[in-house]
């Protein structure tokens, strides 16, 4: 009798674990542990720090995407913002051809220019969607095309080298073994978490995603809230660009061009809904961790690029299916 009770309790507990919001984290753990026997070097401290340094910039840009997804929108322009910000920053601070090349102000001015570029593109997206009533998909698709074209044009498709050491250290330097990138990510992503979970604008964001009309009737400033979401996504993409550009030591106009699926995929795997109203920064962290783990383990075990793409595509598709089934 007692044995049966135990089994029931165990089942309940296991079911609880799977149905709670931490299921993707459990999945990450299972994936990681079951990969250990087949993946030499997976648990080495070098590799663990590798996983985290690969994860941080993706987490930042995916967090921005999560905020947009919560409002029921989508931001396809995030990768082009990364390329544009990289180029704008490099054009300001590069020692070879930068406006302020060699000056002590080069790095801070470059950093500010990058963030401003991200915020401007994000604001532009938000304004076009809320004031002109255009669908987010087409607005961000066109801004993606326009700004990636602009980034290539500004540099004539050549990457810009010789960035100030102060700047590149943001991407690869560390303080007491803790990378600067980690400080930046914790600060930014932490702020987004607080915004979403503990602030009034956070509740407005969810309200817009659940039912935009109901939100408007209840007095939510829908236009400003949605514009805020896209502006934040732009700023996040620019911040991720800072980390990527820093560690590559190069301002590349095609930076992040292939990252879009990872960004949206991570948010959806975490549990953000493509239909709006659902999503959390912590979940997105789990999604990013899962995708990074897949990449890392399959890479270390010598799987071909095509296998990795198929596995990632499959996982994202499953997550999207799950999202659709929740809605039914």
């Amino acid at each position: 009798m007692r044995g049966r009770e135990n089994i029931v309790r165990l089942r309940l507990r296991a079911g609880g674990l799977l149905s709670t919001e931490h299921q993707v984290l459990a999945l990450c753990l299972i994936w990681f542990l079951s990969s250990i026997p087949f993946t030499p070097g997976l648990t080495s401290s070098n590799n663990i720090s590798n996983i985290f340094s690969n994860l941080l910039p993706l987490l930042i840009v995916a967090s921005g995407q999560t905020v947009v997804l919560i409002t029921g929108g989508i931001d396809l322009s995030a990768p082009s913002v990364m390329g544009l910000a990289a180029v704008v920053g490099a054009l300001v601070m590069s020692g070879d051809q930068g406006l302020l090349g060699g000056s002590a102000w080069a790095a801070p001015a470059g950093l500010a220019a990058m963030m401003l570029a991200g915020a401007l593109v994000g604001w532009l997206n938000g304004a076009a969607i809320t004031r002109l009533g255009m669908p987010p998909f087409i607005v961000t698709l066109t801004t993606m095309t326009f700004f990636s074209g602009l980034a290539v044009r500004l540099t004539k498709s050549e990457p810009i080298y010789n960035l100030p050491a102060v700047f590149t250290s943001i991407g690869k330097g560390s303080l007491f073994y803790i990378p600067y990138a980690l400080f930046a990510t914790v600060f930014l992503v932490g702020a987004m978490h607080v915004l979403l979970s503990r602030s009034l604008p956070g509740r407005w964001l969810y309200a817009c995603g659940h039912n935009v009309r109901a939100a408007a009737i209840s007095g939510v400033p829908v236009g400003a809230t949605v514009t805020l979401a896209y502006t934040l996504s732009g700023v996040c993409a620019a911040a991720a660009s800072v980390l990527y550009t820093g560690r590559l030591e190069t301002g590349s106009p095609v930076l992040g061009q292939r990252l879009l699926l990872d960004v949206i995929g991570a948010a959806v795997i975490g549990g953000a809904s493509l239909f709006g109203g659902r999503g959390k920064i912590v979940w997105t962290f789990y999604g990013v961790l899962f995708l990074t783990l897949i990449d890392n383990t399959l890479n270390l075990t010598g799987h071909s690029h095509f296998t990795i793409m198929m596995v990632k595509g499959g996982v994202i598709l499953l997550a999207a299916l799950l999202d659709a089934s929740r809605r039914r």
Partner: protein
Amino acid sequence: MKRWVAAVLLSLGLLSGCNQNSGPKRITIGVSFETLQTEYWVAGFEAIKAELKKRDIAVLEAIADGDANRQLEQVNNFIARGVDGIIAVPKDAKTIIPMIKAANAADIPIVLYNRPAGKTDAKSVAVVADNPGITKATVQYMCEQAKKSGKKHKALLLMGDLGDINAVGRRDGFESAVKEYSDIIEVVARVPTEWNQEKALAGVTNALQAHPDINFIFTSSDFLFPSIVAALKNADRYKRIGEEGHVLLGGFDGDPTAYQMLKDGYLDADGVQNVYFESEAAVQAVLDLKAGKSVPEVIRDPGFVIHQGNLNEMSPQMWGAQVKNAQAGK
């Protein structure tokens, strides 16, 4: 419950220990390609893997899909895994530098395949084709054919992405060859394709409209031939060698399309990068570096020119011919 978890962890740990300790350690080389978008890269990738297999060396492969950041992550993964050497096709000359620095710091030899790094004090070895030399020899052959015809020729050059040092080398090789034949060759159009087939098609179509008498075309890469052939067909100018109105055609790479065009008698000459030489040299260089031997910073593939006169003799060394024959099941 805790005991269960501990037992699972322990057995997994034991398993992983067995895995790592079994047998003598095989040499492992990480191979990172920026892209597999053209047949040339696929052929190079396969040739390197075949060369490593021949020497019983394990391969870790990674394709960055045109993304320099992904390439950086993949190279870092190789380093974390503790590979014995890295062979990489860089996305470009500059973004590869931090990866070379990381490999240097971990004391892992790194060899760049077909694309050299920009100016840096980080240590690497590059295996590259002699782009200016091979192109010059190819264009010289075309110019000789033009000379034999006794007619003056109007030439069109398709340039690659000039951010790519290989594209610059090929352009320079072309210019230096036609300079020697300035009495019979006049270059009337230089099309910047940025390694893009659509741009090449538009560029050749426009040039043929502006100069309908163009009768000499050289492309900096064979993968642009489909665009050239389409534009020539539209203008009814695609003729075999010896037919009235034939346009002298030349290219660079040695790909399967070029081989077929040579065989069918449309293409006059092609500069071939010797994929087999380059892949063997890259593997040898990485092993030599690992063994502490000194290796020159740049290993040059002299390549060769294949044309109607030496087609049968040279095609066994042309990678495009091998790919074509394999496709045909020969």
